[in-house]
Every structure is written in structure tokens, then in C-alpha cells.
């Protein structure tokens, strides 16, 4: 199994743990990930809130680098995934946009590189049975709230990811690892995403509501597949504690970190030391000394 792999800007900064755990899990499962040389930022929320052309051309720059290899573009960041899928969609629908993007890139790009989230590779190409066969440590019934947020599932006619209101991709992986995936109502609520710095007040309220619901559902941890969900749900717990006096101490892990633990990888290798809220309880539940 060989794919092009887009780490995204956060992989070099605030989500090194997402990048480390994705590549470690891939190696462990025999998945080959090749980074396109010179990949560039997808523009993220700032791009599409500012200018429609930028929002399409920025992701297209990296997609065009992969076009000739014939490989699928695998993405571990839900935001990059979302922007790339939307860019593909818009470029294939609008000849004028395609022409403009082609002029900026110095080559034509038709919007045809298949973009897939790493979760989709795990579920559809590896499969839960193979994954189970590689598991060295079980989650031992750990109660896990799988949080999907916005960018994987919306807009659904473009991302086509799972069920838009009740996705179960991560739930199926958690179950395969011996965990207990919780039924809970905040799977696709929004954490505030890219407004973490510009509207911290909004993000604190939204994350508090998600954390509160996960706790009420009896979660031992939350798993995510997006660096913005992770940093908002993890780091904003410190603000919630200060501003609202509520202490959740809820570990928020990337799904790839949880899978990595079960595959026998070390917590350090998976970047678990980077979480603001310690995941010691989770690590112990999996039986790592």
C-alpha cells in the first residue's frame, strides 16, 4: 500500500504528535507514505474566509505535485482534508477557476487527485480484521468518546465521509482494538476550530459543552482526527478551569495515538508527552508499564 501523504503545517508545529503517530502507525502496518516535495499550506479557514480563489489554488498547489504519480493523497489533518476536497470539487466544476489556478501554478490541474483521510485508509484498505491481527495490547474495555467535529463530515456531498450526523469510523476502530465506543450526542458538534485565538470566548464555550457531554457519557478519553479539535479540546481545558471553575482533566488523543499504543508502539514514539492533559490513565489502561 503506497500513498502520497500530506502532513499539513500543524504537523511541523502544534500537531507533531499527530504526524508522529500517523507515520508510526503506517510503518507498523506496512503502509508506505510519500511526502510530495515542497508541499504548501492549504490556506485553512483563513483562506476560505478571505478569498475563494486562494481557497482553491492553495490546496491545488500540493495536489498538482501528486497528480503525475497516480497516487491517492492521504491526509491526517481534517482541515487540510476538507480544503483539498472542496478545492477539487470547485476546480472540476468551474472551467474559469481551473484556468486561473492553472495559470498561478504554471500547469493545468483538473481537480482529479483522490483525497483520502488516513482513517479511510485504515478502515477500507487495511480493514479492521487485519488491524485486529496486528494488535499487541487491547484497550481492555476503555470507554472512548469518538469526536469527529465538522471538517470530516461537512459538507457531506463533497467530503462523502461516513454518515454526516452519526459517523462511526473511529468507533469501529476503537471497537476493533477492544475499547468501548460510546454512543454520545456531540460527535459532530463544532469545537470552534480556527477561531481559537481570534474568538477564544466562543471556543471555550463550545469545547466546554463537548467535554461536559463526554464526561456525562462516562468517557475515559476523547479521540479526534483533527489538530484543531485536539488543541482546542485539550488546551482550552486550562481556560475552562480558570474561567468556569470546572475541572475535566479529560485526555484528548489522536485516534492514531490510541491505535499506536495497541500496536505496541511506545508513548514517546507516538508523541503522547505533548498532550497538555496527561494521558497516563489511558496508557495504563492499555497496560503499558
Amino acid at each position, binding site marked *: 500500500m503506497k500513498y502520497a501523504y500530506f502532513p499539513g503545517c500543524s504537523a511541523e508545529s502544534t500537531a507533531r504528535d499527530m504526524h508522529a503517530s500517523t507515520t508510526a502507525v503506517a510503518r507498523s502496518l506496512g503502509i508506505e507514505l510519500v511526502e510530495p*516535495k515542497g508541499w504548501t499550506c492549504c490556506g485553512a479557514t*483563513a483562506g476560505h474566509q478571505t478569498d475563494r480563489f486562494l481557497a482553491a489554488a492553495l490546496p491545488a498547489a500540493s495536489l498538482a505535485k501528486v497528480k503525475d504519480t497516480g497516487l491517492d493523497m492521504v491526509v491526517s489533518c481534517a482541515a487540510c482534508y476538507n480544503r483539498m476536497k472542496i478545492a477539487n470539487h470547485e476546480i472540476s466544476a468551474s472551467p474559469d477557476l481551473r484556468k486561473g489556478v492553472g495559470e498561478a501554478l504554471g500547469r493545468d490541474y483538473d481537480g482529479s487527485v483522490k483525497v483520502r483521510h488516513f482513517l479511510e485508509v485504515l478502515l477500507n484498505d487495511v480493514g479492521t480484521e487485519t488491524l485486529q491481527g496486528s494488535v499487541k495490547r487491547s484497550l481492555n474495555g476503555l470507554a472512548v468518546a469518538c469526536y469527529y467535529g465538522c471538517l470530516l463530515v461537512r459538507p457531506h456531498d463533497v467530503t462523502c465521509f461516513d454518515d454526516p450526523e452519526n459517523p462511526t469510523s473511529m468507533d469501529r476502530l476503537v471497537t476493533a482494538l477492544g475499547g468501548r465506543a460510546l454512543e454520545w450526542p456531540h460527535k459532530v458538534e463544532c469545537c470552534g476550530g480556527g477561531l481559537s485565538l481570534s474568538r477564544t470566548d466562543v471556543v471555550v464555550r463550545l469545547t466546554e459543552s463537548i467535554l461536559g457531554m463526554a464526561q456525562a457519557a462516562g468517557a475515559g478519553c476523547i479521540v479526534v482526527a483533527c489538530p484543531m479539535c485536539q488543541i482546542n479540546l485539550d488546551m482550552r481545558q486550562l481556560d475552562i478551569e480558570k474561567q468556569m471553575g470546572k475541572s475535566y482533566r479529560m485526555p484528548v488523543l489522536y485516534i492514531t495515538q490510541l491505535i499506536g499504543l495497541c500496536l505496541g508502539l511506545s508513548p514517546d514514539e507516538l508523541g503522547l508527552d505533548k498532550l*497538555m492533559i496527561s494521558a497516563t490513565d489511558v496508557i495504563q489502561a492499555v497496560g503499558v508499564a
Partner: protein
Amino acid sequence: MTITIKKDKRVKGLLRRIADMTGADLGVCYQCKRCTSGCPVSKLAASGPAEMMRRLHLNAGDELLDSDIIWTCVSCETCSARCPMGIDVAAVMDAMRTLAREKRAARQKGNVPLFNLAFLQSVRLFGRSYDIAMITAYKLGTLKLMNDTDKFPAMLRKRKIALLPPLGADRKTTRRIFKKARQRKEAGL
């Protein structure tokens, strides 16, 4: 909700412009308000997305761009996902943000346009986002230098934020993209 619209023939409504920018047929909205019901921030703003749609129908002009929902919206796209008529309400919000910036409409609490500018500047210069430069530029602009500094020591200790600028990006292409975007804007595309 109570909506007051200025009746003035000289005032040009935004409806046509926004429909052109988004390609959405806003005329099919029948005010079921599922967008506002599902909106995670409509309670934090003076008016939700459904009211924006109604105001557009009533041919509201530039005053609509001062609405606080424009910069409270978190771009979660729940409105678009749940619209029974398939209107891309989130794209309407993006279009209103673009117009608000062009027409220098009032900026509410927080400063989303400044954050977006700081983010995109770092992408233009480095080809990828450079968090520390971007955050510094944003903080200098808002003059709220102390926000979030309590987390900084732990982030540095955990190496949770990159100190050095990103290398290895194809900066040439990114710069050409920004240049092209500016040219298109100037040409009114």
C-alpha cells in the same frame, strides 16, 4: 425577530452580489430556521443565519455587513449540511466576510480578519503557516499581548510549537498564487 429595512431606491441590496459570488439560489429559502437551530454560535450573536437570509431577501444593503454573526461564525457548515433546500449558507457567510472586508464594515469582538491576515501573510512568506510569527503579528495587532501566554512555557517545554520557520515549502508557487488572487480581485473576477 424584528427586521427593519431602509426603503431607499439608491441603496443597492447585497442579494444579487452574494448570489453571484456563491452561485447559490437564495430565493428558495423558506425560513424553516434549521440553520439557526443547528448553529453552535447563533445564541452568541445578535442574529442567526436564518435572519441573514431573510434580510438578504428583503434587499438589505451594506448595513448587513456590520452583523456580528459574520465574525462569530465558526465555519462549521452545520447550516449548509442541514438546509432542506440545499443552500450553501456557509458560503453565504464567506461571501459576506469578503464583502465586509472590502467595504471596511465594523469589526466586532475579537478580530477574525486580522487573524486571517496574519495567517495568510505567514503562508505567503514561508509557503506554510509559521505559528510563532503569525501569533506575534496577530497579538501586536490586537494589543492583547498577554492572552494565552500562560500556556506558552508548557508548549515550549513539550516542543508543541515550532520555533524555527518552516523550510522546504515551494514558496515560489505560493507567491504566484497570492499574486494571481490579487490580480483577479483587481480585475473584478
